[in-house]
């Protein structure tokens, strides 16, 4: 046990070499020449990362994802808190929130293009739609899990409802909100990429589609790596914020 943990980084490195090596060999032996493999991706990396097209695409996608997440966090938190605090609101909205959360969001794309046209507004709408429901669901779970004593003390002190909502309920449901945000980030990225495929507007998704259609798989794969980097980076940021500012919550409920 001790021996393994002291050589862990080496083992991980060996695992990486193994995976990349297997990929390289399989593609060289069995796949056509244009298919991406580690060495060809590394060779394409500098040019792809410095090309204006790729940077513009990455910026467009990232902006849409961040803007959509912001809208979804604010609106989802408000709706979720209302559902968690007010029973009638919960019963009125629960069916719809649960149902739309379970619906595969890709299916909404044709409808969104009818409502928003083939524009970046449609992409934003897709991202908001993808991110809203996990946040609202987790916020309402969080608001319900506030310890009853807190609320009793607040009532005894005649706290205003705004204080109960935003001074007590919101902070104590933060771990749930962060868990919801983690789910939402993954879904928002998928939403942005899928929308770009569907409506062909500038962004990493469309970049991947265009480059792989013209058999530039290496450049396209660099864009995939960027997307994966966004996903992992945002997740790490949330983990860091949690540890930094909410150290008493170990891992939030998923």
């Amino acid at each position: 046990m001790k021996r393994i943990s002291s050589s862990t980084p080496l083992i991980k490195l060996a695992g990486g070499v193994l995976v990349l090596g297997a990929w390289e060999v399989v593609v060289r032996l069995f796949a056509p020449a244009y298919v991406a493999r580690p060495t060809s991706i590394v060779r394409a990396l500098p040019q792809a990362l410095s090309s204006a097209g790729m940077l513009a695409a990455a910026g467009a996608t990232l902006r849409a994802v961040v803007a959509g997440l912001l809208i979804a966090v604010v609106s989802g938190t408000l709706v979720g808190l209302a559902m968690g605090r007010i029973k009638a609101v919960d019963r009125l909205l629960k069916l719809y929130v649960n149902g739309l959360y379970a619906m595969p969001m890709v299916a909404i794309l044709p409808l969104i293009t009818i409502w928003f046209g083939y524009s970046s507004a449609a992409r934003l709408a897709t991202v908001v739609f993808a991110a809203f429901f996990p946040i609202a669901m987790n916020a309402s779970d969080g608001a319900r899990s506030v310890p009853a004593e807190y609320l009793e003390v607040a009532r005894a002190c005649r706290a205003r409802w705004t204080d109960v909502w935003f001074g007590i309920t919101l902070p104590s449901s933060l771990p749930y909100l962060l868990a919801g945000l983690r789910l939402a980030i993954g879904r928002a990225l998928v939403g942005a990429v899928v929308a770009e495929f569907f409506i062909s507007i500038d962004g990493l998704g469309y970049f991947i589609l265009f480059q792989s259609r013209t058999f530039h798989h290496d450049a396209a794969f660099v864009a995939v790596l960027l997307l994966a980097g966004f996903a992992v980076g945002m997740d790490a940021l949330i983990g860091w914020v949690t540890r930094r500012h909410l150290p008493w919550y170990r891992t939030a409920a998923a």
Partner: protein
Amino acid sequence: MNTEARKVRWATYAVSVLGGAALWELAGRRANAAVAAPLSATLLRLWEMIETGELSASLGGSLALFVAGFGIALFTALPFGLLLSRARVLRVALSDYILLVNAMPMVALIPFILSIFGLELGAKVLVVFLFCFFPILYNTIEGADSVRPELIEVARSYRSGEWAIWRDVMLPGTFPYAMTGVRQAIGRGLVGVVAAEFFLSASGIGQVLMTSGRNFDTAGLLATVLVITFLGVALMGLGRALENRFTAWRGLSG
């Protein structure tokens, strides 16, 4: 008192459903027919789709695709995950990379699959498979990490054979986590089905969505979205039931 409360609860649910239906009907009537359809028109169109067999044919195709991709993923990811759960060195070597791939938006790989495998049926199964494979694998490994090494040591010191260790320690320890993965895979797999039917060769429920969207058959589009929503809710419920059954047995919660 209790029955009174139950009555109130059902009444609010009824208000929720009827209110949503009325809102949909009114909004649909006021809007342009190309943009939205009232609930009544949507339900009529749904009935028409059921009667002509259009719905069952496309739904059947989509479900077959789902079962194929999900089934292959289940029968490969589960054994592989269990293998990794005993082979500790291999697990340490690979788990970071599996985490990374699991966090990656898998839709981004669809253009590559399109350009390498074209419009064959196998390409779509591959997409669904990829969507389902990594959540199952990732969670199974997570379960293996949660099995305390002391348990294996104790089993070993009582001279448990490999089979006994599997039966008494590894399977009960990893299975609840694997079921969480299965639940996630069901949700992602459904997204994969619709995405594959959109972006690879059009078929099934995805094709119905595409064509009704393109023809501004908004009632047909909304009817199909309604069907997919119910499908999503049903599959998600199934996944959650599976998960709860096994986490309850383990005495785990959350």
